[in-house]
């Protein structure tokens, strides 16, 4: 679902959404070995701290931990992202790319990521997250002059309510070329709506 940029009130969106708690998702499963293995094999990581329970037990963390490079969102929510009916996950809590923030476009690209890793996340831990909107702004891109950028801040907690990681993320929401072209059609056919 997209909207014409002339109908978009960015000031009102900022007023309503910045600082808003969007999600308090909780992991469907505890932290497990096999998703960690799949993550490691995705990038050719053979580190036994992440893959070998016997060797990891003798290491500084006393067992297998989640690699810092593995997004803990996987274990702190329903698994696959974005939430989708195909995965049986709840699309209401995060409303796909825009986290529920209304935007002219419906296509998402991740632009900037900042992680702080505070505590080890171990196999068997249970995670939850709190995700808030930190900023919403318009910054045109060549593809879409009405692209909207959404900054989120997420804290991850373990079963002891200890913050184990923090994540600041900047997502760009844009329209397809076909959707952008429809602006001109509306301008030609009648201009801005009252």
């Amino acid at each position, binding site marked *: 679902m997209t909207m014409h940029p002339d109908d978009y009130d960015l000031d009102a969106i900022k007023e309503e959404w910045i600082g808003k708690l969007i999600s308090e998702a909780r992991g469907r499963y505890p932290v497990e070995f096999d998703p960690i293995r799949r993550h490691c094999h995705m990038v050719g990581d053979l580190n036994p701290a992440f893959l070998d329970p016997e*060797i990891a037990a003798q290491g500084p963390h006393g067992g297998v931990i989640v690699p*810092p*490079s*593995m997004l803990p969102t996987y274990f702190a929510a329903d698994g*696959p992202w974005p939430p989708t009916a195909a995965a049986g996950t709840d699309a209401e809590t995060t409303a796909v790319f825009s986290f529920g923030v209304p935007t002219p476009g419906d296509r998402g690209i*991740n*632009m900037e990521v900042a992680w702080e*890793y505070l505590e080890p996340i171990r196999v068997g831990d249970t995670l939850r997250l709190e995700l808030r909107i930190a900023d919403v702004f318009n910054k045109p891109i060549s593809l879409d002059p009405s692209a909207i950028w959404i900054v989120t801040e997420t804290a991850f907690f373990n079963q002891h309510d200890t913050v184990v990681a923090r994540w600041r993320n900047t997502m760009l929401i844009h329209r397809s070329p076909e959707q952008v072209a429809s602006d001109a059609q509306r301008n030609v056919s009648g201009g801005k709506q009252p």
Partner: protein
Amino acid sequence: MSAINYAQERYWEDVSVGDELPGFSKTLNWTEMVLQVSGSQDWNLVHHDSDFAQESGMPGIFYNTGWTTGMLGRLLTDWAGRSGWVEKLSFQMRGMNSAGATVRVHATVTDKRMEDDRALVDLNILMENDQVGVTTPGKATVRLPRKNPA
């Protein structure tokens, strides 16, 4: 077999500003494309559906944030040794890593410092490919053990 000795420590005292992390390369064939979806569980169509990606205005599918984070994280943990801990990792996605590209990640030590009792090393990290050059510049901070902690 990996050439990396994961049991070895990397001590803060042995690191110098200007040290280079040689990193590693990966060629993005179809198997890698499948692995990035499987390993990240990112089901966004722009990462595996060429038609959707092109209809969205992209040249084609491109590799996702989970994969990018994984590549840069591996770069750091391969280097940090047995007790090293990645405290911070940040990066910007300025270009796409697409099917067929050969991607290289590497890094340079830019500073080393003590903060409270933590022996820290700051790095500039870089992902680049043979299709578009630098795609992902970033920064990281790694905490390392000391040989003779105070």
